[in-house]
């Protein structure tokens, strides 16, 4: 009986540690994978975010060639971090379309001038409605879409240099 008492604190602590460990292993979901991976992109038609680039519709994502669709915003810091990697991907021959989230034309233009412009088309999603329809919960996020307009891969968060092979492979597989 006495012995049990002495080890009780350790048991309680173990329980506590278990709860916290559980919290670490199952972090509050800040990123949720889209259920749309493997299905056709939802229909949308977005106006141009900046005058220099045309807008974006779902038809532009099904032209027979795989593309990378990047959700970004001028007010998003990780997007700045991601910009050079996207440039690198463009140099590899990847076609990148973008959707600017809750953004203004002048801000987008400044962002492109400062951080580089790897984009072919940029649609403006002022209400983030299209973003939600893609099952994306934040920016930056990127989707690999095959020539038929089917989402093949989702990348949540900024694409870092070490993620490049993964993205390139997904694009190749989508061919």
């Amino acid at each position, binding site marked *: 009986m006495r012995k049990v008492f002495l080890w009780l604190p350790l048991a309680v602590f173990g329980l506590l540690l278990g709860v916290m460990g559980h919290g*670490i292993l199952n972090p509050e979901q800040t990123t949720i994978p889209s259920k749309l991976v493997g299905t056709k992109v939802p229909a949308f038609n977005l106006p141009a975010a900046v005058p220099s680039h045309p807008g974006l519709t779902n038809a532009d994502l099904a032209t027979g060639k795989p593309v990378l669709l990047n959700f970004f915003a001028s007010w998003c810091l990780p997007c700045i971090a991601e910009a050079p990697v996207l440039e690198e991907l463009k140099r590899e021959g990847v076609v990148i379309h973008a959707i600017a989230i809750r953004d203004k034309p002048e801000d987008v233009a400044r962002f492109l001038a400062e951080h580089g412009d790897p984009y072919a088309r940029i649609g403006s999603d002022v209400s983030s409605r299209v973003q939600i329809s893609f099952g994306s919960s934040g920016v930056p996020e990127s989707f690999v879409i095959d020539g038929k307009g089917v989402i093949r891969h989702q990348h949540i968060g900024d694409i870092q240099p070490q993620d490049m092979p993964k993205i390139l492979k997904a694009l190749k597989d989508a061919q």
Partner: protein
Amino acid sequence: MIAEIGLGLLWLAAGLAVVQAFLGMAGLRQPDRPDLGGAVRPVAVAQAVLVVAAFCCLIYLFIVSDMSVKLVAANSHSDKPMLYKVSGAWGNHEGSMLLWVTVLAMAGAGIAVAERRVRRDTLIATLMAQGLLALGFYAFLLLSSNPFERLNRAPQDGQGLNPLLQDPGLAFHPPTLYFGYVGMSVAFSFAVGALVTRDVGPAFARAMRPWVLGAWIMLTLGITAGSYWAYYELGWGGWWFWDPVENASLMPWLAATALLHSVTVLATRDSLRAWTVMLSVVAFSMSMVGTFLVRSGVLTSVHAFAVDPQRGSFLLALMLLYIGGALALFGLRIGTVREGALFEPVSREAALVLNNLFLTVILGVVLIGTLYPIVAQGFGQQVSIGPPYFNPAAGSVALLLVIAMVAGPLMRWRSDGMKAVLRRMAAPVILGVVALVGIKVLAPDIGTLPWLGLAVAILAAAGSIAPLWKRNLARTPLFTWGMVIAHLGVAVALAGMAVDSAFYKERLVAVDEGDTTDVGPFSVRLVSVEPIIGPNWTALEGRVEARRGDGAPFLLTPQARNYSAPPTDTSEAAISTRLDGQLYVVLGKQGQDGRWQLRLWWKPLVTFIWLGGAMIAIGGALSLVGRLWRERRSPRGGASA
């Protein structure tokens, strides 16, 4: 270059921590080799010197804005005012961890140099535990959060510090809490040392007490300052949100408060041996849990911190090692520690046991409530736990605790008569009952918790000063004054909380420039709203004129600020402090019809909350000085009342 020097110093200090731990172990194994144990002290001092130098390197890097260092680039900006450049050094995870080990090592050096009360082997064991503890944190720093990491390519300028954190109060708030956490780690080292040598007695308690007291003062100040910061910075008019980050600082405080009282029982009466050791482990583990909650990001909080689950795992591993190890040692050793002195059910010891039990219950309630969202998530539910849970659950026990707090100092050590105690308690209790009835008569709609809270506060205010009754005040020892002031501070803070919760007035209105509105006893007029520019922000500033009755008008200037780096909107409340409370004004949005939203609060006696917090800390400080003074004069550590 400086960054590399800093990193080198840190590695050297980590090496010395290893040496310190090994020398300690060797010294304990071979008591016939006094040179081994004796060498621990200078090593502890050298380790402190090295890590302090490393910390200075980091501060220097922030002062000169060396953007090639990742930490500086991520947290500083060359236009930032100097104060925030310096505080930027610890306003982030890596820097604050470095601050942690720096203070830890300084505390170790302090023990090595100044501690003469405990047995020699216990001191060596304590320093050994300290070395091991420091080692874990060095590993954490060097392996997963190197503050001196360089960037391949230096950016043009840094990212800036979260604007919410650009505040003079906050430059000093986190270090205050960290000093508290580290103080708890010293208490922990002492407890481990005493368990290793089975030397759990009054000498050990007296050696540990100043550290516990110091840590507790720092935690008290940190919580008080944090509460005030949230009050004026978040612009929500509240002073405690039961946010995980706030709870993270409250839980160690609760454990430290319990420890502070039980360590006094051990030092004075040689009772509660096992319990005191247990509490020092609990208090330190709560500091670790607090750091874990703040840094791991397992819980979302209104307080923005850079979080990283990997660091959380590392902290968890450290906890497993240290707390698990200490509790295992407890299970193995405490059975062989002799029973302390006995006491009667009616005695000061018993009152302090009661105090400890109530504190433990509150701690349990807060801990469970804070962690519950993690458990619920395991069952697939998203929940948030807020004031509706914490207020009644923790508040009701806190009121009982305050009553026990009043009774304790009015009882004699070892054994006392129930009748005599009741006689001494009579005046405060009568006052409390009169208050209970009086408040209900004057304010029939008052909520239950504020009502009881206010009555208990009045009881406690009277009861706190009762120990001075019929005493020669000039000859009353300083630590008794400290206790009285701290207990009175609890009553004052409680009164502030109760009065504010019961009688605050809130108005939310839309007004044109020139319109007048009322809140509580004040009439408030929005004179104009103008754009203004600050060093790294722009804002809309409302010019609001308030007056009470026919009194002189005074001006308040709430702002809606927009920071440029990183882009963030904040609202700066304007607060005017009166003798009997604060007028709190927040400028909201402009509606389509051109009217401005104004949010106004009249918060009676709200200042008492932080005044009480400050009194508790001051009481603690007087007590600390008083104890150290007394022990200096009688190093054999005579009995203290």
